[in-house]
């Protein structure tokens, strides 16, 4: 049963049916971006039995909604659609394949700032032992580090000892 595209407007339909390489849908709020994506996922799955689709969202809620709508459109569970948030996808990849970079699958994520500051304290204490000066305001230091991580700052050859130390940080 082909998916009914009649409820879509012309632009939406064009985006859903696009078949030639990558596609960026750029539109304002409430213009039906998610709807387009959902239809597109369903169409791809229905048209070709050999494809699977990875669809990533920002929130769990959005992922669940898309899942429901894709299944509805297909009239069955779209097993070949992998629908989840960016974060859970990244975590899954690290769990499944992290052993290549020395990560154990049973790692846990630190989401509370307090936990992260505790680790920072630990590292800072060790740096102090080695005779390196360490700023005392942990919270702003954490914000600074987060920004460096976000920019994938790897320290380079001239990296200060703190970043190197953090890069090697492992929980015993």
């Amino acid at each position, binding site marked *: 049963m082909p998916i009914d595209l009649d409820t879509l407007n012309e632009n939406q339909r064009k985006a859903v049916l696009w078949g030639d390489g990558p596609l960026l849908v750029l539109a304002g709020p409430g213009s039906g971006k998610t709807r387009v994506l959902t239809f597109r996922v369903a169409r791809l799955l229905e048209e070709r039995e050999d494809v699977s689709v990875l669809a990533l969202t920002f929130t769990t809620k959005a992922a669940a909604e898309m899942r429901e709508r894709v299944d509805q459109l297909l009239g069955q569970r779209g097993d070949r659609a*992998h629908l989840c948030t960016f974060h859970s996808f990244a975590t899954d990849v690290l*769990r499944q394949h992290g052993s290549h970079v020395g990560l154990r*699958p*049973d790692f846990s994520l630190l989401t509370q700032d307090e936990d992260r500051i505790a680790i920072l304290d630990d590292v800072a204490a060790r740096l102090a032992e080695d005779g390196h000066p360490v700023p005392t305001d942990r919270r702003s230091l954490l914000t600074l580090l987060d920004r460096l991580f976000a920019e994938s700052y790897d320290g380079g050859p001239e990296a200060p000892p703190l970043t190197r130390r953090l890069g090697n940080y492992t929980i015993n």
Partner: protein
Amino acid sequence: MKLRKLKIENFRGMKDLELDLGDTTVLIGENNSGKTAVLEVLRLCLRELGPRRRVVFDAFDFHLKDADAEPSSAEPIQITITFSEDAVGDWDDQLVGRLNRQKVLQVDGDGRSHVVLRVTCAFDLNSRDFDQNWSFLTLNDQPLTGIFEAALGTLQREVAYFYLPALRDAARHFDAKGPYWRPFLKDNQLPAEKKAEIAKKLKEVNDLVVASHTSFEQARKRLKKVQDVVPMASGDMVSIEAVPGRIFDMLAKAQIHLGTSTGAKVPVGRHGEGTQSLAVLMLFSAYLDAWSTGTPIIALEEPEAHLHPSAVRAIWGVVSGIAGQRLISTHSGDLLSEIDVHNVRRLVRTSAGVRSFRVPDNLLSSEETRKLNHHVRRARGELLFARCWLLVEGEAEVWIFPAAARASGIDLHQKGVRVVEYSQSDVGLLAKVANALGIPWYCVMDDDSGRRKYEAAVKANLGSAKESDRLVLPYPNLETHLLPSGYAPQYAPFMSAQNLAKMKKAEGDPGYWEEFASHLPSQAKTRGAAAVAAEMERHGAVGVTAELTDILTKAVTLAGSA
């Protein structure tokens, strides 16, 4: 998706066994060496095991290390099953996708995909019960977390495991409940109009049969009286179905009849054991052709059961034609003769549990493989079952050693010693293969000029064994040894008068027998040996020289150590 590695820890006779599996793997070994256990453990893990964690092992599956051991204190059973790509891209994208969505797929440094399943079972002291768990692992043996229960089902669907045990009772297998026959009997393969047509015909046939059988009508009337005693819901409750009236019923009663030599058709269950076994194998193969998906793993226990040797060799054609990965256990040298020696895994029970031996893929050159095929595999597949090879030079020795054993009351067969002739073959190759398969060997060599030909090859393949446990040079040659030991009359008739005339020494002179032996025509050596063998058996143990006794004792000791 092929099963490439199986590690079995603390299961039945196995303490720690690692097996690598090819597209075809043939397990050999004595009774109780664990062949069936291997096939069984895979059935438990790939078929029986379910997401509900119902324990599939029982108390006797635990490896009990001594007479006092109890399952409750035994080491945990741990089974690790690894599926691997042989080359990047062996598994198609859809398969990889399915495994990836279950988050169980692993990729190694070369880009090859793997899936590792581990099943463990241990006795839990708190609950006083067996605690069973399964998990998928990373390539460095760590359990993956966040795996859904459905992952196991996904794996089990991809690698459907089919196990056909040695007992192949056709009557049971061709029953409507037989797992491989039942699917053939499902009526949903018939279109509706065909069903209606058949049902109508069946009713006609039934009415006709019942009408022409007056005894049926009487039985029906009698049975109807039941209704007079026991009130029943509707009127005509008793009907006789001489022919199954409904399609599913008829299909359930469908029977296979095989023609006999006289042309008479006899139900398969009434044929001989061999035919039954063969018929079940064929059914199994037909079932797999019709219904299997993915790459099934076919486990066959002793496909040779009850078959004539020629039929055994022929059956390999059937077995190798079954699509999928094949895992076979056998006791048949004839079957082994049809199989590449690299596929053979020899299981040996040792004090440290069962061990597995194989000829590694790159051990033999193609020329050596050819020689091995010619001298051992095709002609003497049963050699691979031996516990010790007594390597001897030629036909004369093949006459003498078994005869000497019989004369001394040693049963070489029972001890598992096989006498193997090497002058026509390649002694180094035989030693190499025996080492790889974990078969101890003992080489008897003439201490003469011919020694140079073989000695280096033997010494190059000692492995970790001492030279004295592998090589003996008891005499310059067999004839020089036997002639002065009372067996001259057995050789004398084969000595030509012409050669006798060339003799320089007289009987009693030192070196007389050496000279005599050197003048023996070559065919006299084998003929003489056959005569000596017969004479030796007549004499009994007293007729066996000390040298021969020592060699036999050594071979038997080595066989016992394996």
